[in-house]
């Protein structure tokens, strides 16, 4: 049985189920309680779980993220939201120096079961400080796990997996996916962390991607089909730990790869994957791996300019043809 709901409702369901299942789970962030979140993800939570477990914070990202770390060390399971992933710079120390490191630095004495939800991505005309895709930053720091769902089913399944995971998990949620209505299973389920999914099978080229760009890659694959090109779309879903077996299997089948993300191209996670494929799967490749990413610029405000700054289906299709020399 399945039902059709929006991505934001799917996340809401995941949070609700986990909070009902485990009273160690609590929610903290700006405008999460009385307002119920700017995307209505936690409306009604305050009434059901009370002010101890659904907490409106002041605008103090370092403070409340650090408090999440401390609470997690005591066995609580904080689910914290930063209103935009761009604000991670305000909370860099608690996330990158504390949450990511304290298990290792203490010789494994503690786990930090913290979930940090980060609404990300461009396309909402919010300019340079509210539109970034900062997954590479999170992937850089050992100690963090990083997931980037592309649809309602995974958004719910991964938030549930993240809450149950003993390690800090950063969940990148694309803001322009929130309103997408999609089928999800009626019954309870988990989407395991660390498992990619082939969204479309193909034999000519692998498009590795995640988050909102999965949809664009699917559109590109459809248009390429009409031109006789059979593209495989691999939705990574998790960036750390990455599903290398899935990448290897797909690349070994198609022998051509592009990697698509909304990130700034320089220093992107797409670049990291490209390097790993070049290092370890060189003999499988018929052509150099291409990264299809944003530009090396600040995300612009004007719609005309912003649309230049992330890959569209046409951009992806063009890259596929370049790599295949068609």
């Amino acid at each position, binding site marked *: 049985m399945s039902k059709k709901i929006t991505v934001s409702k799917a996340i809401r369901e995941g949070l609700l189920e986990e909070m009902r299942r485990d009273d160690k789970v609590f929610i903290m962030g700006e405008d999460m309680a009385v307002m119920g979140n700017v995307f209505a993800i936690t409306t009604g939570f305050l009434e059901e779980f009370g002010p101890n477990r659904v907490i409106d914070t002041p605008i103090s990202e370092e*403070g*409340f993220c650090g408090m999440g770390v*401390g609470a997690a060390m*005591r066995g609580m399971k904080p689910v914290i939201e930063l209103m935009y992933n761009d604000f991670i710079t305000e909370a860099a120390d*608690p996330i990158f120096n504390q949450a990511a490191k304290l298990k290792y630095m203490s010789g494994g004495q503690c786990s930090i079961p913290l979930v940090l939800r980060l609404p990300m991505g461009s396309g909402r005309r919010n300019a340079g400080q509210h539109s970034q895709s900062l997954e590479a930053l999170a992937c850089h720091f050992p100690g963090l796990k990083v997931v980037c769902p592309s649809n309602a089913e995974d958004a719910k399944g991964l938030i549930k997996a993240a809450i149950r995971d003993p390690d800090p998990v950063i969940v990148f949620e694309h803001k322009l996916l929130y309103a997408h209505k999609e089928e999800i299973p009626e019954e309870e389920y988990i989407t395991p962390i660390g498992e990619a999914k082939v969204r479309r099978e193909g034999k000519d080229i692998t498009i590795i991607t995640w988050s909102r760009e999965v949809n664009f890659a699917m559109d590109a694959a459809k248009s390429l089909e009409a031109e006789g090109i059979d593209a495989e779309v691999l939705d990574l879903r998790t960036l*750390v730990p990455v599903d290398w077996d899935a990448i290897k299997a797909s690349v070994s089948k198609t022998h051509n790869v592009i990697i698509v993300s909304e990130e700034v191209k320089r220093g992107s996670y797409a670049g990291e994957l490209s390097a*790993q494929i070049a290092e370890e799967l060189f003999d499988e490749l018929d052509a150099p791996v291409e990264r299809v990413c944003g530009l090396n610029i600040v995300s612009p405000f004007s719609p005309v300019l912003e649309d230049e700054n992330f890959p569209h289906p046409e951009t992806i299709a063009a890259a596929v043809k370049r790599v295949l020399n068609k």
Partner: protein
Amino acid sequence: MAKREAKKAKYSKEQLLGFYTTQVRIRAFEEHAAECFTKGMLAGNIHLSIGQEAAEAGAFAAIQPQDYFTSTHRGHGHVIARGGDPKLAMAELFGKRTGYCKGKGGSMHIADMAKMNHLGANGIVGAGQCISAGSALASKIMGDDAVTVGCFGDGSTNEGSFHESLNMAATWKLPMVWFIENNCYGVSTEIHRVTNTPDLATRAAAYNVEYAVVDGTDVIAVHEAMLKAMEHARSGKGPYVVEAKVYRYQGHYCGDPAVYRPKEYMENALANDSIEKTGKLCLAAGATQDELDAIKAAAQAEMDEAVKFADESPYPDPSEVTDDMYSADNERCVAR
């Protein structure tokens, strides 16, 4: 003056000797560590608590077993005062596998979550304040009666983390005590060159939080301020800030000659040496000089043993380098 003397009379000889012993053990640990460092037996840097012993002994005697705490880069004294094992602490300084953190943290990051409820010393100034407040939040949510004590230095009160966490802890009445050891120096910078309030704890008033400022060389003054603070936090009245004015005998790190300090600083420090002061209280309460000497000799022997244990302990095996990064799926997470 008479009132103060009467207050001190409340303390038995045994209690006073207890404070004295903790202070002497902290200093002995630090002097042993310094000697090992000078001999090249330790890697990295160490930051010593010499001069801060009365503050630490007085404060920790007010902390109950169920309570939690965080510490700083200058945190060896907190471990000794909390009843930690000097062998395991010394082995951590040596980077040995037998250390508190299996040699993965070192001097600045000793933690002992299971026995001491020590949520960790921290290399980032101010980071422990938010972690402590988070621990206090956990206590509030779970409804236990633990208080979390954040141990901090003067420098961290100029970090945003101090203000952000104090504001939230105050607003939500979290069971937390801020324990500031103000030794007046952030590395080389004298606190009043960069801070506009004569005392640091007075900033608590901005958040409607109660506070006390005490002489950190006076073990009784610190202890009583902390007893009051702990009772306040435990009874649901919210956080409390205690500032103890202390001296840092060494430079910032072991080997720093501290040429940036006026000579009066150390003259005042030595004139107020906290171990001598607590020793005098013990003698006044009926202890003998022989008893004090025996405590010092025992501390020396104990720390000799700790050094021996650390020195003879094995280093971690290089194959352990990627262990303990993640609690689940560690191998795959560190592989790429």
